[in-house]
């Protein structure tokens, strides 16, 4: 039975937040960090609390810590040593494994994310701008009061028009293919796969293979916790639009090319079900927009290219043990929208997302290493994921076509990783445990 009242809400619920802020913090003394944490715990809602109060709540708080952050709070060495290696090393130290090279490498990261003093993140989501201002004001004041707590950087999030569906700066509908946890009360939409054992995403429960050994110690710290891989991806909207204009003659062809990169039309309609033209009704219909597969319906990629983003991030029936490589995504866009006809203004905009899973190495890192930044994915050769893979300007993208396929060479980077980190997302009891540690 899932302990809804102990699991932080971000794992199991989506909130109607339109805006928010990520606060990246450092603790120079454990007592200060614990004082900050103690004051925030009453407003960190569990999944149960968030669900019960969703209509009335105006802001939602999530707290998570890096490995160095756990140490900075006073977690003893014997306990720190029981955490998984990838989490202990941190995302910046594993950049070569993840393919975060060139412009994406940690030396170019912003916001202090690559630094050894990144200890915690406070995710503040707010229903509206007024609440955003109020809540961040209260948090700033709290940080000022807590001796030894300092803000390294902040990132303000905001949705951009149109507001009736979640989308990124390229205009693509988001949040379409989400796994569902057994016992969460949610049912999967057709094509999203059967509900997964909770241990795939939450520590302390059996996963798809059964009971899980080697959890971090002590149990109170690990139980109902999870890991989050944070990725801040700058989206080069002007570059993307220019590329479409240069490589496709008509607006319809440009939309098709964009869809070939993504694997779905901007409306969310999957190419496999709508290979030639968009179908916005299909895109908006959760009972249909995820109900397809690849090996059976499009084995050679004539509808959805083998290397497209959606096909890499969820290879469906062409992958083995998919159930062990699913991820939960949360996040938001940041930065102002670039109007359709405007040239690139050089303003920083993009998506700042969290990939939540019980095993960073088996779920998040697997996707990065074996699907996104892997030249041998489907034996495509000189290709990485065209949307979120590392692109150094020399790679290709192949679009199967009859009579002859199209090969786009020298693909520019449409996004650049500007930072990331591995966080541990404790359960509510675990948060209290952290405040009660001795120095």
């Amino acid at each position, binding site marked *: 039975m899932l302990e809804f009242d102990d699991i932080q809400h971000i794992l199991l619920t989506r909130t109607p937040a339109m805006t928010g802020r990520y606060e990246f913090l450092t603790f120079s003394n454990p007592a200060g960090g614990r004082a900050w944490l103690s004051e925030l715990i009453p407003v960190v809602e569990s999944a149960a609390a968030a669900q019960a109060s969703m209509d009335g709540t105006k802001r939602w708080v999530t707290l998570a810590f890096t490995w160095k952050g756990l140490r900075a709070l006073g977690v003893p060495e014997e306990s720190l040593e029981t955490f998984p290696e990838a989490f202990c090393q941190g995302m910046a130290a594993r950049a070569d*494994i993840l393919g975060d090279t060139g412009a994406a490498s940690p030396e170019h990261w912003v916001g202090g994310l690559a630094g050894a003093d990144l200890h915690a993140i406070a995710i503040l989501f707010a229903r509206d701008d007024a609440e955003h201002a109020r809540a961040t004001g209260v948090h700033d004041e709290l940080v000022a009061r807590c001796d030894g707590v300092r803000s390294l950087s902040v990132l303000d999030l905001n949705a951009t028009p149109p507001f009736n569906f979640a989308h990124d700066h390229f205009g693509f509908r988001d949040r379409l293919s989400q796994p569902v946890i057994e016992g969460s009360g949610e049912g999967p939409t057709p094509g999203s796969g059967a509900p997964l054992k909770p241990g795939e995403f939450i520590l302390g429960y059996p996963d798809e293979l059964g*009971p899980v050994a080697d959890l971090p110690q002590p149990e109170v710290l690990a139980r109902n916790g999870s890991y989050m891989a944070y990725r801040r991806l700058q989206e080069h909207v002007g570059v993307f639009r220019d590329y479409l204009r240069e490589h496709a003659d008509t607006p319809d062809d440009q939309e098709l090319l964009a869809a070939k990169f993504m694997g779905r039309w901007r409306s969310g309609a999957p190419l496999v079900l709508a290979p030639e033209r968009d179908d916005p009704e299909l895109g908006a219909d959760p009972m249909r927009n995820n109900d397809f597969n690849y090996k059976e319906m499009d084995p050679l990629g004539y509808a959805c290219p083998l290397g497209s983003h959606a096909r890499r991030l969820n290879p469906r029936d062409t992958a083995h043990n998919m159930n062990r490589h699913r991820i939960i995504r949360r996040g938001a866009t940041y930065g102002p929208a670039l109007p359709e006809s405007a040239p690139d203004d050089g303003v920083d905009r993009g998506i700042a997302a969290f990939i939540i899973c019980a095993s960073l190495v088996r779920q998040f890192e697997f996707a990065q*290493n074996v699907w996104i930044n892997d030249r*041998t994915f489907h034996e495509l050769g000189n290709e990485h994921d065209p949307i979120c893979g590392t692109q150094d300007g020399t790679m290709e993208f192949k679009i199967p076509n009859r009579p002859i396929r199209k090969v786009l060479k020298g693909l520019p980077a449409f996004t650049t990783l500007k930072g990331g980190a591995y966080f541990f997302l404790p359960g509510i009891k675990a948060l209290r445990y952290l405040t009660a540690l001795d120095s």
Partner: protein
Amino acid sequence: MSGHDWSKPAAMAIPQEGYFELERGRYGPIYPRTPACYGFSIIAKVKEGREDAIREHGKTIQAAITETPEFLAPLRLHYLRWVLFDIGDGLTFQYQGIFDTDFDKYTEDAVQLFGQSGINTVFTNLEGFPEDWKENPDAFVKFVREHHFPSFLEYGEYPYVTADEIKKALRLKAAFSDMLDQMQ
């Protein structure tokens, strides 16, 4: 992969570590692709009295593949060789595989498949194999990595060619043959 000439046999000498330049995978160093594709050689001592159990697995695998020929497809295997030997230090088992996906990417799939077949239980007869291998796939991965010995020479008659490419070529050949026969 493009750039390699399948028609010219090739040999590759490999440094002692098993790689030319350290490239990190999620679980350890990545061993390079060679004219003999990818492979591993897991070598471990056999627990006292377990020889028959290991030999019995030969029959288990034969039966499994006869029943489900595609069973090992996720591993993209070319060849497997299992050997038991005692050259004075006690009974030792070698599990050698040649396949088309690199060791680091392959290990989880392999461990998973082993768990699904009867193949995993061959490992339980080996010294040092983790007791909690079922709940602890990471420990299984660690065992496989620690008992792998990289080659220092590999040779390929048709270098770098994948099993899929070979089967595709053979299918084409068969199709052309049929076509020519029908044109007679």
